[in-house]
């Protein structure tokens, strides 16, 4: 599974095909709350990406020794350790970003993208693809948050990354830096990316979620009739039971 093509496939999958914000709509809480400016979006995205990549790799390394029944607490402990590391680093080296993101840094622990990737990918795959799955997902998240933050800052303040873009006569539309603006921008960007995907699919481009064969990512796989599918009620238990048996042995 750890072929080179698999690594690039994971990256493309995370950034475009299964973009955590626009396609999976995971991690909405930080997406809506901290993207008041492009800088905040980028900071939040990269912080999450770092935690995601490292926790994915560690969980993948430990997947054979974590008992199935307590896997969620084990994941949370691993994720929380990395969040603490990242939080302390931010406090030490980027205090302004830390102040801007506030409580949302510790809340990365409960970001459902991270737990979701651990559950659906890292726990079933080897470390290198898992690491790149985390990097891809994290980059996808960062790009989405930066885009949302950029548009909100552009319309709500007239600047992007703190640089004046709009002419002086532009009256900032204040609602875009408030909570409703986050919803407007997120919905519009999701609609735009769906439009691009649909028109791409009409031209014969492959826009399905999993591009290159089976990656055992059944949780997010569109192939409903797949024989290897594990998370449909019956087969999910079979797959998990197998793990249980292995542990007991």
């Amino acid at each position, binding site marked *: 599974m750890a072929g080179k093509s698999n690594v690039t496939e994971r990256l493309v999958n995370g950034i475009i095909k299964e973009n955590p914000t626009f396609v999976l709509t995971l991690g909405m809480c930080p997406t809506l709350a901290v993207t008041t400016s492009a800088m905040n979006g980028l900071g939040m995205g990269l912080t999450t990406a770092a935690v995601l990549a490292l926790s994915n790799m560690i969980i993948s390394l430990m997947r054979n020794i974590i008992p199935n029944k307590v896997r969620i607490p084990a994941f949370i402990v691993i994720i929380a350790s990395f969040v603490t590391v990242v939080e302390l680093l931010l406090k030490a080296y980027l205090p302004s970003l830390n102040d801007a993101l506030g409580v949302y840094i510790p809340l990365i622990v409960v970001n459902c993208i991270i737990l979701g990737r651990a559950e659906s990918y890292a726990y079933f795959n080897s470390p290198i693809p898992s690491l790149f799955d985390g990097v891809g997902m994290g980059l996808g998240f960062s790009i989405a948050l930066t885009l949302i933050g950029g548009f909100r800052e552009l319309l709500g303040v007239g600047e992007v990354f703190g640089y004046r873009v709009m002419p002086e006569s532009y*009256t900032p539309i204040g*609602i875009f830096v*408030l909570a409703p603006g986050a919803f407007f921008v997120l919905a519009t960007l999701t609609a735009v990316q769906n439009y691009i995907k649909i028109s791409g699919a009409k031209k014969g481009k492959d826009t399905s979620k999993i591009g290159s064969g089976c990656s055992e990512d059944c949780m997010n796989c569109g192939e409903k009739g797949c024989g290897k599918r594990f998370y449909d009620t019956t087969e999910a238990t079979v797959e998990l039971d197998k793990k249980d048996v292995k542990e007991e042995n």
Partner: protein
Amino acid sequence: MSEEMKMYKVSSNPHVRSKVSTNGIMMMVVLALMPATGFGIYNFGIRALFHVLITVGSAVLTEFVFGLIRKKQTISDLSAVVTGLLLALNLPVSAPLWIGAMGSVFAILVVKMLFGGLGQNFMNPALAARCFLLISFPALMTDFTCDAYTGATPLAALKAGGVVNVTDMIIGKTAGTIGETSMIAIVFGACVLIMAGIIDLKIPGSYIVSFAIFVLVFGGRGFDLQYMSAQLSGGGLMLGAFFMATDYVTRPITGKGQIVFGIFLGIMTGIFRIFGPSAEGVSYAIILGNIVTPLIEKFTMPVPFGGKVGAKNGK
């Protein structure tokens, strides 16, 4: 088709048809708004007319362009005209002229058409757009100084503890948004609508009465009838109660529900005006009312004859 065949023609319901049409009702609403619009233009000058024209024009244009994209034209039902007109009446005359156009685009495109067009919008488009503008441009939307009037609106003066002239407020010779100042003009238009059977008094009546009681009880000025009448005739209360809270799409459909809706609006408006930081709260109250409308309908659904009282509705 022979006479005999006509007699036995079988069709599905509805069998009783009414000549009332959407654009007929909307036309009546536009006509009923004319006194308030006319007074606004007389009171605030020609700039008010520009506001009305630009806002209505851009509302209709937005609906037209959306219709072109969807290949289904709906501008002939005149609802865009009503939305644009109501929004224009909610703008302060000194606001820049583009603000109405931006509000119209938001009202028609985001609040109405994206949710499926007339009948599917969960909020009153004009009010949603007013709130959008109020949050986006708080300074521009609350600046009521113009050639005719300087200084605060009567409600702001009341909030600051000042004294206001209630007679002027009833006639409408005060600062405020274009269409909200004249109580007489609004009530005249509302009477036309009530007599035409387009709206009834359930919502406006329960709204105004509950608001009046709320002001008397919680106003902090004791049993002060002058204060109460100033609160009633000031701000957007009359315009909101008669023309916006009664919007067919966003009000509850059950009779009991409409009274609950009116009381809810009255209490919310009272809370916003007396305890909130702003002097006005009609638009936020009605929008909140729009959001709880499905809930009100759920609890006030009438029991069919012979049905169980307290049985679960809709399941």
